[in-house]
């Protein structure tokens, strides 16, 4: 017999070894996330998936579910903190949605909508970050990086290429590519790589196809991410 815990007051069954987030999703409950992906082990860096268990905040993507746990997730308190984390990400990079080809399909933006991030709270860093257009098919716009490391993990673990890595630390942490020149065009990166198709924001984008989908037909135009993400089976 499977065990169960309480998720926002509702019983959720789980198998031994499942994390809170996995079990909640399997039961149809969405928990916001940016760095979590079903094909990879938990990463635990974005902290959007924080929930409260027995009065303590934990990362639901990483913490194994336990019998009888009481998990609070969709509460004004937790959502307020998640909104603030998204606000932090918005001031850290240069996120100008109107001129971004990922707009409407961007998970960061969609989470901001869903968490009702009407405006900003903090002062902008306006960092000076480059754009790398050296690859024939793909473009890198580092201005939009949120350091989820999905491209790093996909390239290393699935594509077997390690095209991407993070270097630096703290607020100076940044993404680099696997080439002495520092240019994507000098790596073995391919548009077919999993890493080319996993960026939740607009850092790794395909050339010549931007803005192809009209406003209104994009992924998150009609439905919030908490519905879209669950339909995806992702």
């Amino acid at each position, binding site marked *: 017999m499977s065990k169960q815990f309480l998720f926002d007051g509702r019983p959720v069954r789980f198998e031994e070894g499942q994390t809170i987030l996995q079990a909640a999703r399997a039961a149809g409950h969405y928990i916001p996330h940016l760095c979590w992906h079903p094909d990879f082990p*938990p990463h*635990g*860096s*974005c*902290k*959007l998936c*924080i929930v409260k268990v027995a009065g303590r*905040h934990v*990362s639901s993507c*990483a913490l*194994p579910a336990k019998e009888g746990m009481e998990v609070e997730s969709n509460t004004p308190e937790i959502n307020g*903190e998640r909104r*603030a*984390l998204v606000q*932090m*990400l918005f*001031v*850290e990079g240069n996120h100008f949605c109107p001129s971004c080809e990922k707009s409407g399909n961007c998970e960061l933006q969609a989470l901001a909508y869903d968490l009702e991030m009407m405006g900003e*709270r*903090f*002062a902008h*860093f306006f960092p000076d970050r480059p754009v790398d257009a050296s690859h024939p098919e793909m473009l890198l716009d580092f201005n939009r990086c*949120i*350091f989820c490391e999905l491209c790093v993990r996909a390239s*290393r673990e699935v594509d077997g*290429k*390690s*095209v*991407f*890595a*993070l*270097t*630096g*630390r*703290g*607020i*100076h*942490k940044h993404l*680099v*590519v*696997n*080439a*002495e020149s*520092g240019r994507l065009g000098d790596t073995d990166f391919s548009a077919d790589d999993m890493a080319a198709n996993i960026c939740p924001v607009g850092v790794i984008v395909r050339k010549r196809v931007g803005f192809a989908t009209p406003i209104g037909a994009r992924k998150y135009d009609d439905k919030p991410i908490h519905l879209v993400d669950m339909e995806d089976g992702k």
Partner: protein
Amino acid sequence: MKSHEVPPTPVGRIVDRHGRHANRLLQVLIEVQDDSGWLSPAVITEIARELSIPRSRVEGVAGFYQFLHTRPVGRYHLLFADNITERMQGSAELMAALCSKLWVEPGKVSEDGLVSIDTTSCIGMGDQGPALLVNGRPLTRLSHQRVNQIAELVRRETPIEQWPAEFFRVDDNIHRRDALLGLDMAPGAALRAAIGAGRAAWMTQLEASNLRGRGGAGFTTAVKWMACRDAAGADKVVVCNADEGEPGTFKDRVLLNSMADAVFEGMTLAAWAVGASEGYLYLRGEYRYLLPALQDTLALRRAQNLLGRGILGEAGFDFDIDIHLGAGAYVCGEETALLESLEGKRGTPRIRPPFPVTHGYLGRPTVVNNVETLAKTCLIALHGGEAFAATGTAQSTGTKLLSISGDCAHPGIYEYPFGVAVERVLEDCGASDIQAVQVGGAAGVTLAGYEFHRRIAFEDVPTAGAFMVFDSSRDLFDVARNFVDFFAHESCGFCTPCRIGTALLKKAMTKLAEGHGAKMDLADIEWINRLLRNASHCGLGAAAANPVVDTLLKFRPTYEQRLKSLDFEPAFDLDAALAAARRASGRDDAAAHLADRAPGS
């Protein structure tokens, strides 16, 4: 080993020496840099090729550690310790003086490549500061006279080996000895006792001692060791955490300098208890000067059959110790970040659970203990657990080493039974007219005068050992700001709240310091603190706002006096933001400036 058709390059030789193992990457980077001065893009490519790992991984690691340079530094690279206690001793003025004498800007390299000067976090010399690192070697007791001499030596390009030995003198400064510092133990005595008693009995003694970790968290050592002993998997590992990075702490420096045998013996006692065969001492880069003596001690212990195969004739008790160097990253004091670093990776804390006792170094069951904790196990092996538990308090048995610095007559090391009152410590170290004590380092607690009756113990004021004293002439805002800068500098950047929150805190404190603050900024600080505390991945982020929150509570006027208005002030200096346009247009009329405040508001 790979055979070379052509003679190996210097990089190739270093990689060979490390068995071409990728988990030696950090050690390889340190040694290659010793050789080449900095890690150029070409050198990074070569290291990647020699180790057969992706270049991106090497670049990722090289960019993480402060003492690894992916851009050139001067042939003389001087790093002034920037902890608040050294600031109070005038380190900033001394650094400015040296910069001007050598015609170099802080953080830049002189045009001839001769010298570069910058700051670094606390280097564990708080009792004999101000101090700096010159090409990695600590230089203590800086004064203007000494700075003049340094400038001259650098200008003449005198090799550092020929600088006056007195410059590099590091004293133990032990002012109060108790059980541990009073111990006069022949190497191997504790180990003989434990082996004589038998493995199970040794663990029982440790349990009876109720020894708790001295690194700050206070986890019960016996529980940790038993979990590792009982964990599935062979090849267990014992790690000594000598990454003593908490600002104001330097007790491990003294133990490693004067009681290295006890530390290594403690590691061996742990190995005996859990059944480990490999040991690592993770030595912070700042203490690299201790490495040769530590290696000598290890060699001696091997010769005495206290390490190696069949230790003290006990068949099957095989254990040896290797020393790994850190390279300037406070976060590596967090045990899972330390393990990552030990594996030659970026020092990013891991997700827990699983804990190191089951999944540690290279996924093997691993005990990670602090230097002082391990040294103290010798006392337990020699005199028994009950004798150990007879001192201290109910939940904090034994003694604690305090590293005392700041405003007192006798900074240095003091060993007290747990439970000692803060006021007693202040009296002993010759401190008077004191307004605050920072116990536990930047991540610790700021105690105001009305709290000096409180006791050093896990039940009251826990500490890894830092005890920084501030007399009434000090401004506690400056103290908090120094710690905020420290956390922003040391954040590994892994999780959102810490990476961005520590940088935002730094901005807020700078704004207040520059006289542009408003009440709204204090509210922002409190909100950022909540996010750091609740959502951070590890203790660094969770504690990053502690000094601000504590001083806001206990020394609020020092913040309020800095406020420009009660409501709101711009996030940046408005008039300064027009400076570039003024220069370009050559204007300086009234309309080319912005007043601080709107007229009439």
